[in-house]
């Protein structure tokens, strides 16, 4: 581990895993390719862990997603804190039973006798021409699942802090890593970031943009442009999707009276629908218009570059909607 505080997302998550495993020997890591013999993860996120902590605690697995999550659940029920990797978010459909019917429910169904303190790391995000089965955002499925928590850092500092909190958390946490942001460096303070707390990434007074992962940076870029036209956009980085920070969103919305929720998942039935509904339900009369939503086009992720670009949200789409809402 390097001492400097400038890290990219890969380094930050790696440091968080490293620190957690050092401090607590019940923390485990498992998943495909995670061992150093396999180069420490396809993107190197788990590099060094198996060498340092041994292959009993760091298990590079066969391609067996159901067994990966199942093993994590079992080890968790047996007193450990496994961090399981499902390489890409699309593959999370494979162990969906393990997550939905088991990890999320065992605490409740056992009346609190058992719990499942696992972290499921997964990466996703379009932009690398990987086509229809490699870059979907599915956070809404898990936000709709009682018992699950979901976090999605947009920068290295949050990645470190949220990973530490996710590992500490006594319940299952889905940790979504935005692949195209992996190499963007940032200061890492190594502070824990509480799950459920959003961050105001930029203050503003006219309109509120609620984003996470990709859409935070896009929101900031859009805000920069809008400022030139005298429009002041506040950008909120959710950081946690389940639970999400109602207080932060509502208080910003109360101030600005206008809300856009933006995410890379397809718009329809995305988390923007829930957030917009809650905003509308709570602030009716105080808003200048209904909360609106931006998401990807309602289709599988396309391969061809011009289509892939048109598919996802971007700063221009956010800016255009903001202007439209300003009337």
């Amino acid at each position, binding site marked *: 581990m390097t001492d400097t505080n400038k890290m990219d997302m890969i380094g930050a998550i790696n440091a968080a895993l490293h620190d957690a495993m050092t401090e607590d020997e019940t923390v485990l890591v498992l998943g495909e390719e995670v061992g150093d013999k396999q180069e420490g993860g396809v993107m190197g996120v788990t590099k060094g862990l198996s060498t340092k902590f041994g292959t009993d605690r760091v298990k590079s697995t066969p391609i067996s997603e159901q067994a990966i999550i199942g*093993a994590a*659940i*079992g080890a968790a029920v047996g007193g450990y804190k496994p961090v399981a990797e499902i390489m890409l978010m699309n593959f999370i459909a494979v162990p969906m039973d*393990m997550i939905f019917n088991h990890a999320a429910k065992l*605490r409740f169904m*056992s009346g609190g006798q058992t*719990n499942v303190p696992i972290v499921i790391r997964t990466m996703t995000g379009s932009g690398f021409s990987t086509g229809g089965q490699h870059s979907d955002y599915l956070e809404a499925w898990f936000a709709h699942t009682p018992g699950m928590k979901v976090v999605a850092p947009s920068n290295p500092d949050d990645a470190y802090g949220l990973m530490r909190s996710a590992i500490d958390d006594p319940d299952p946490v889905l940790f979504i890593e935005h692949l195209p942001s992996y190499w963007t460096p940032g200061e890492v303070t190594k502070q824990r970031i509480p799950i459920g707390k959003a961050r105001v990434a930029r203050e503003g007074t006219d309109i509120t943009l609620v984003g996470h992962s990709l859409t935070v940076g896009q929101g900031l870029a859009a805000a920069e442009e809008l400022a030139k036209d005298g429009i002041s956009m506040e950008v909120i980085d959710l950081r946690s999707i389940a639970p999400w920070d109602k207080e932060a969103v509502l208080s910003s919305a109360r101030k600005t009276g206008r809300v856009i929720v933006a995410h890379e998942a397809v718009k329809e039935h995305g988390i923007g629908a829930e957030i917009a509904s809650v905003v509308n339900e709570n602030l009716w009369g105080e808003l200048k218009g209904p909360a609106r939503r931006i998401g990807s086009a309602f289709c599988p992720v396309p391969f061809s570059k011009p289509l892939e670009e048109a598919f996802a949200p971007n700063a221009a789409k956010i800016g255009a909607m903001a202007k439209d809402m300003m009337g």
Partner: protein
Amino acid sequence: MSNYPKPDNETLLEIYRTANLIKQNDERIIKLMMAGKLVMPYYSPRGQEIIPSAVSASLEDDDYICTIYRGLHDMLAKGFPLDEMWAELAGRETGTCKGKGGPMHLTCPERGMMVTTGIVGSSMPIATGLGWAAKLDGKNRVSVANFGDGAANIGAFHESLNMAALYELPVIFICQNNRYAEHTSFDDSSKVETISIRAEGYGMPGVTVNGNDPDEMYGAAKVAIDRARAGEGPTLIEATTFRFNGHLLGESGAYMDKDLYAQAQADDPMPILRKRLVDEGIASEDEIAAIEADITARIDAAQKAAFDAPFPDVIELKRDVYAEEID
């Protein structure tokens, strides 16, 4: 099989005691269900009593087991407290899961009864993870996965056995082959004649034994459990048996092969073992009757306490979803 260790007289009597508890408990449940006093989906283990009774003879309290909806026999053999079980079946707040889990999710970590699942096949990946935890603990603990013949055709079986073999985990996979999965006969679900033949494909030992024969079942389980404790890895045991009350209580049973059913009834392991105890002078008729009467009294008490207890308060919907109560 002739090499298998045999249960001594004391063990054989203990096996009977456990099996009789299972049988009486089952009969009582059915009686109350018929009377409309218990309302739940019920998957009777009648006919399969010997399997867990003989397996548990070699298990310690802190060994782990996972079982399925048809699992009351496995749980009782593992020492599941009767009172909490009955209270749970009756949906009371004094139930082991506070009434939230019900018959398909009975859990009792103190007795190593970690997970009961209603999803076919899902006991195996989780038991694999418990095996990993047991191995990390270094206390020679083992993990038992119970499942049915039907479950042997689902993907989770494959992934779990491969993973457990690869990591040499102390897991005993017990396939209780009762010839039917719901209404589908074993012959209609696969081309193979035994499930145990599949063990070779994972590089682990596999055996098929008569699960209704206490000698064979005890011997095979002891060998596998000793092997697991010695750090030599997992075993697949296929225990042949039959379920006398069909899949779900109340069904017609019309799908069942009449000859097979008649033969199974004739082979009912309970009267056979009882007679053997007397014939071999292991226990007198009076001693056995006393054991049975004692069990009846315990069930009476558990039943009464259960029905005297209050139902859970609706606030419980907000508890145990996460560690912290939902507000």
